[in-house]
């Protein structure tokens, strides 16, 4: 199990890597979304990733409304946002749940692959 601070650090690292890849800003310029990162095993450790005009920001706390909810145990989420694991396997075996449309799920997948793909 990861701590809330570890998960926050992983998300901050993810947001920094996102900002360092200028193509992501272009790719997501039309994709304004609120993403709720919801660990299933931690109390009061939800986070919000907001994509607006291609820029990704991170805030502590759950959003009032989100188009995507990413739910998993804190360890899986931390590993995922640090790029230690890819989203596909936990998604396929049910450890990771993405509550979103298929197209939004695919677009989130593309972001992680742009950052972490080999």
């Amino acid at each position, binding site marked *: 199990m990861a701590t809330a601070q570890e998960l926050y650090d992983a998300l901050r690292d993810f947001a920094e890597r996102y900002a360092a890849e200028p193509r992501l800003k272009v*790719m997501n*310029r039309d994709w304004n979304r609120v993403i709720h990162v919801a660990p299933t095993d931690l109390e009061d450790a939800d986070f919000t990733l907001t994509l607006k005009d291609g820029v990704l920001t991170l805030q502590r706390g759950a959003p009032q409304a989100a188009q995507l909810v990413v739910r998993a145990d804190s360890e899986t989420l931390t590993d995922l946002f640090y790029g230690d694991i890819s989203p596909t*396997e936990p998604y396929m075996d049910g450890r990771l749940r993405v509550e979103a449309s298929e197209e939004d799920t*695919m677009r989130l997948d593309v972001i992680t692959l742009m950052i972490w793909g*080999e």
Partner: protein
Amino acid sequence: MKRVVSVSLGSSKRDHAARVTLLDEPLELRRVGADGSMERALELLREFDGRVDAIGLGGLDVYLNIDGERFVIQDGLRLMQAVRVTPVVDGSRVKDTMERRAVRWLAEHGPVPLRGARVLMVSSLDRWGMAETLAEVGADVVYGDLMFAAGVPYPIRTLEELKELGRKMAREICKLPIHMIYPVGEKQEREPEEKFPEYYREAQVVAGDFHLIRRYMPRDMAGKMVLTQTTTAADREFMRERGVRWVVTTTPVLDGRSFGTNLIEAALVALLGRRPEELTPEDFHRVLDRMDYRPTVIDLQS
């Protein structure tokens, strides 16, 4: 007579059987669709395994080749592994050889000069041979994989970037269920929904998998050329109504019928009596030479 079957994830509405002559030998070719159901496809494969001379897998690729590096689509592999006795192929190798030849032929003899032509490839990671050869002959290509497969408004404009992004994505994309990355079953029959129509509009040539081209095709396609694998009479009527001028199909025509690359590759395996992995691009070239292979160009507006 040797018997070859293509089990396709596509619609059963396209099922057909035919007796043809290939390399001077008679062959029975049959295509059976599983209507997008993996389970039905598995059933069909088990049913034909050991009872025909070769099997082709249609409606999905098993292997993606990106500049010589091979990636395996897991759902495709699952289907392939269900076949224990009969040689089974997905057509990707013959597709690569044939589409390179088709583009070179078109560059010399086609109705649209490809050098400098604006080409939209709706999907290119599933046909690296075509993508690479279009660039080689000097076409100005937009590779639309991110746009049409993932909805990302990012046209890829160079082969180098396609290779870089393809490698970043392919390993993971290949693990997703096939329905997330390719229209299968009834999705192939749905009314088209325009997607990135401005890229269709700008293009003189729209190339790639026909189901994808069709799925996002705008109403006005006046004067354009479509370069794709195989089409039915209904597909051609659909394009004619939208103003498409020429359709070029890369799959060879045998006795007046066009067959999917998986069926052609399976037929070659059956006729040559060799394991699929023993066949080389040179074997495919030799056979295509003997067939006097060239793509089929149809003027839809004449």
